[in-house]
């Protein structure tokens, strides 16, 4: 999978995973369903290797003022959280024996939901 999103130069090694830079929970969750467990584990492994570095940079900004060029990395961090249950619990992109996640609809416009 490729993405037109360009990550900051220092994080070019993560560029093959830029397709995980998705700005909503729904998009991240549905993307997880499209990926194989192998793809997901590769993404999680790469992110874990860079996580301290990424958060060190992102944490310099207030949450509501992350500059546009850094936002894709922020979304990729949230995607790491999205795939954590795949890697740690299920070893399957879906929840085994679970309810269809596409029927369990996140209210992305709920007024008390964090803006970022």
């Amino acid at each position: 999978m490729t993405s037109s999103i360009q990550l900051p130069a220092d994080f070019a090694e993560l560029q093959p995973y830029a397709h995980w830079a998705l700005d909503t929970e729904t998009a991240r969750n549905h993307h997880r369903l499209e990926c194989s467990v192998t793809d997901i584990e590769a993404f999680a492994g790469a992110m874990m290797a860079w996580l301290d570095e990424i958060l060190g940079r992102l944490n310099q900004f207030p949450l509501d003022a992350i500059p546009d060029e850094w936002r894709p990395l922020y979304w990729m961090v949230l995607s790491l959280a999205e795939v954590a249950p795949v890697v740690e619990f299920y070893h399957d992109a879906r929840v085994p024996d679970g309810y269809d996640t596409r029927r369990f609809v996140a209210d992305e416009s709920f007024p008390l939901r964090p803006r970022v």
Partner: protein
Amino acid sequence: MVGTRGIRLQQLGLDANLEGNRRNADISWLIVLSTIENGRDDAKSHLMHDRYAELGRGPLPIEPYISPTYYELEKRHIFKRVWQHVGREAEIPNPGDYFVADLPASDASLIVIRDRDGKINAMHNVCSHRFNKLVYDERGSAGRRLNCKFHGWSYQLDGRLVGVPDEQYFEDFDRGQYGLARAHADVWQGFIFVNVDPAPAVSLADFMRPFYAGLEGYPFDRMTNCYRWQTVVNCNWKLALDAFQETYHVRYVHGRSIADALRTDDNGSMLPIDLLCGDFHRRLSMAGNPKTVYGNPKALTDGNGAAKQAGTSRAGKIAPAALKAGRGATKLHFDSAELPPAINWLKDPDWVFDINVIFPEFYVSTRPNYYQAYNFRPIAHNRTLFDSRVYYPEMKNAGGRFYQEYMKCVLRDVLLEDLGTLEQIQAGCESGPRTHMVLQDYELAVRHNAFVVDRMIREGEERREAESRRKGSPSAR
């Protein structure tokens, strides 16, 4: 001896004694706490069913979970009479802000709106003229007025009719008679409740405080980051709720995910610390496994030991990384001393959360650093809207949000595990190989819910019969 059995409330029955209830409201929580304190050892040595003998012990009939007739009785005697949670005050901070609460079991769709005095109103979303919907969107701002799109009738935010085009062509017309039809609305701890009964048997305070006064002061209003998911599940509302008020299923349904986050006894059983059944509501208290991120509430906020201990039980590396990222990133710092007395009422050192079921179908799980709020809103006898929310504190930075997103995604997937069973169970009940379900001791909350629902229907039917006898008897004429 534990529980609220000494506090009999007739609040929704025939002879509502509101004065008595108010007195009880002031003292009841103290009574509960002291009876627990006195009876602690005694309670542990007995089955929970022994403490609530009035609930019975035999198998439960499944008819109430599959019968359209029983559902009609629930609508009449419960959902058209009780207070129901519809959302948080903070969702509608400004005058004119509204959301629509659809309550199919109450045959109502309500506009919940803040007026210019800051007060919250609930009104039927039906124009008083020829019954068009006033608002079409699920939520928004009405500005200064609610305007009907059919013939332009215009209402103030509190429902008063203030504009009628061509008013002179209505004969003998009195605007005062045609405000929006109202439901009752009130707020407890920032939660908005509505009641469609024209004359509710009890106030919201009298409904909540006898059992839940001890929960007041929990920092609900400081958990401002809310995530919400909704789905319509093809099952009875009680079956859906039941899946969330017992721990027997955890080892199996959640065996791949968070089962190890709860404490087990020497036999591997996951007993709750305690369970309290009131006249309507019920509470369960849970112990966690401090070696897990999910089961150790002190992990994020407690300086040293807890964080090191948490995350040691599984091979996963993301959980500890999320925990590390979240340390110090929350804008709130919680200390167990800040929590009100009803939280972790037996003060168990491994306590992880309390489940509070507010009758009939509102579930609030209170934890030291976040809470969940679920409604199991009936749509039909075999259809339920599961409206689920989790509220966390605001985070300072990306690391904090990573931790929060981790906790949220785990929770969502765990909910999918729970939801996965429900439609199959409904089908199993409807296919009819058995007429009753058997319950073990710590599934008592399932029994309590069925018991209270059935009691309210029975009392309601008795009231109706008495009413029709009174009307039909010669002396009443």
